[in-house]
């Protein structure tokens, strides 16, 4: 979806460039529709940004003034003290959670992307018996919500005594049916058979061809899959809730949730939950901003061919 947005955006901008170069002779741009579009976009931007702004403000206050002062403006700026308290609380368990989330989402997302990429590529580029059946089965997997699988997974993992371990969250995270679907579609259109033929004639094996040639051509799709999977794992809450009991294995989302359920009893946790939530969204923002440019370069790399 994000790629679609990107491309419409770039189309739109190229339109306006053309319109400008044509100068007054071109058709007049409809000011009305443009204003309406801007207003709607502005409203939505505000709608999405206000909660983050609220979080930034709340993260800068102490527990008392969170409730008693204007929620959308600073009162007593002590964000750094809050961060210090957060990192010190219970011997820095929050940092452990961050690390866990980074491992689950980062490594899990990378492995999931590789597996999905290989699978999608194979389904797109090789002919073998049962190909469509496998693809349809994977497609069926897209339709099953991950939440519905958590409990069966728990019972299976119990049998092999893997609950309450790193693997309990990691292993289910490295499968991405949607990734297989996306990479198959993308590989079918972006990796040409002629190119593969050329690579084979040059003596490259199938594996080498995949890792040197195909993977580059598929990179926009792979980046998309990685981002999606990263965000999915990062936000996956139900699986850790069911699988984990050891605090040192929690991902940050589940850890913060646990704290949040204790607010009635330990109200002092409020400021820690808020600053913790603020810090926990930073990796997501960084991931998006830094990976965005690969989308563009990837798309253009495909276009030059």
């Amino acid at each position, binding site marked *: 979806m994000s790629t679609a947005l990107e491309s419409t955006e770039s189309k739109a901008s190229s339109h306006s460039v053309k319109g400008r170069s044509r100068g007054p002779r071109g058709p007049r741009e409809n000011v009305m529709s443009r204003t309406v579009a801007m207003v709607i976009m502005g409203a939505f931007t505000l709608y999405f940004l206000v909660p983050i702004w609220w979080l930034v403000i709340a993260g800068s206050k102490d*527990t*008392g*003034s969170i*409730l*008693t002062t204007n*929620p959308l403006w600073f009162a007593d700026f002590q964000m750094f003290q809050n961060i210090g308290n957060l990192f010190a609380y*219970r011997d820095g368990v929050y940092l452990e959670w961050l690390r866990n989330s980074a491992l689950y989402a980062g490594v899990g997302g990378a492995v999931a992307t590789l597996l999905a990429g290989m699978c999608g590529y194979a389904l797109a580029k090789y002919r073998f018996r049962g190909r469509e059946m496998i693809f349809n089965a994977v497609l069926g997997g897209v339709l099953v919500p991950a939440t519905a699988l958590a*409990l069966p997974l*728990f*019972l299976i993992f*119990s*049998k092999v*005594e893997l*609950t*309450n371990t790193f693997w309990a969250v990691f292993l289910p995270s490295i499968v991405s049916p949607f990734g297989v679907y996306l990479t198959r579609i993308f590989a079918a259109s972006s990796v040409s058979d002629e190119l593969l033929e050329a690579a084979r004639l040059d003596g490259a094996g199938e594996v080498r061809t995949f890792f040197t040639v195909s993977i580059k051509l598929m990179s926009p799709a792979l980046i998309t899959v990685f981002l999606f999977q990263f965000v999915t794992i990062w936000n996956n809450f139900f699986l850790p*809730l*069911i699988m*984990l*009991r*050891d*605090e040192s294995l929690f991902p940050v989302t589940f850890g913060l*949730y*646990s*704290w*949040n*359920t*204790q*607010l*009635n*009893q*330990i*109200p*002092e*946790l*409020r400021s820690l939950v808020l600053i913790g939530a603020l810090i926990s969204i930073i990796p997501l923002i960084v991931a998006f901003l830094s990976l965005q440019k690969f989308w563009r370069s990837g798309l253009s790399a495909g276009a030059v061919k």
Partner: protein
Amino acid sequence: MKHTKTAAAAAVALLSSVTLVACSSSEDPSASTGPVDTSSCQPAGENVTLEFTTWIPGIEGVVDTWNAANPDIQVKVQTGPNGNGGTYKNFFNQIEAGNAPDLGQIEYDALPNFRVQDGLEDLGGCEEVLAAKDDFVDWTWSQVTLGSESSVYGIPQDQGPMALFYRKDLFEENGIPVPTTWEEYATAAQQVRDAGGYITNFSQSDINQFAGFVWQAGGSWFSTEGDEWSISLDSPESLQVAEYWQGLLDDDLVSTLPAWTDEWNNGYNSGEVWSWVSAVWGANSIASGAPDTSGKWAVAPAPQWTEGGSDAGNWGGSSVAVLKGSDHVYEAAKFALWLNTSDEALTALNEAANIYPATKEGLNLPVLQEGVEFYDGQPIYDVFAEASAQVIPDFTWGPTMTQVYGDVSDGFKNAVSGSGTLSSALEDGNASTIGALEAQSIPVAGE
């Protein structure tokens, strides 16, 4: 054909073995009636490691003290969200999968649910547990025996006796006497309203607070006779309490802010809401939710239904139970007793998480005798200790409290927004609870 036959035979064999197992296990408890049978509670005779799941923050430090002194019984703390936030569901899943922790924190109102689903080990075979009975405040003990003579399903950990928190300064300034009966409370409500405030906030979602009111009035929502449950959400006491609050709602004498929200905190912090009949742990909720009102609050015994009475209700409290499938009931019980009766553990728990102990001795902890700054130096825990002794021991929770809370809360929300009444919400809740029990094949008396 042949295959299906063998499969069928295997299935029959499997089924019959299942029934056999079921029979033999159901015979066990009947064998243990009479003199205390301690066979279910024997020391393992070797070093054991217990798993203990609880959501009390900072309890690790307390457990470390135990571990240092008991190398043969090591306890590993596991944590998670609070019970209804997911931990109870996890317990049930883990019991099903056979890998539940040995010990789990379970609130009083959830114990019957675990009992009905056969999720608890009976500690009635442990002599030390039976001997500890008199250490605990009487009514907390009846919360963990669940109406049985010889069984104990958990060790009481904390309690939530209720009292009246009120804005001493505002009551004094306006010449309103502190109400000692609910009738006076209603009169005061009118005076407070005339002065521009609300005497309290009626929470549509804290059904366990409402249960505490009913508890204080001498009512109960459930009772058991053998295996059969009787449900009485619409008992006379229950309806009396409902009509009382309905009257306050109708006359706009109480606010109806959604509880535990910023709005609600602000209601108290800004001085719009003047009092709260709440449990002992509410002391911290006010202190953190209404920081600007420090030093202006005081605590008095809860208003009474009869003049000169001294009944108290309870809101909250939990136990430490031994979950089904634990191989070390004896050791688990021993640890749970230490955790919830020893001075060092109770003091540490109070420091770490404001746990208000369930033992008679625990209420005399030095830390609970001190004046509290937020309450203008009043030693507020004295009031709660008195209330604790006055809590009626007969209140029984049902096996489907999550459903009860949900259904009654829906009804209360409607009543607050003007459709239906609190009484009709309780009557509807009564009917839906009977349905919920029947749906789970839990026997209901008279059905």
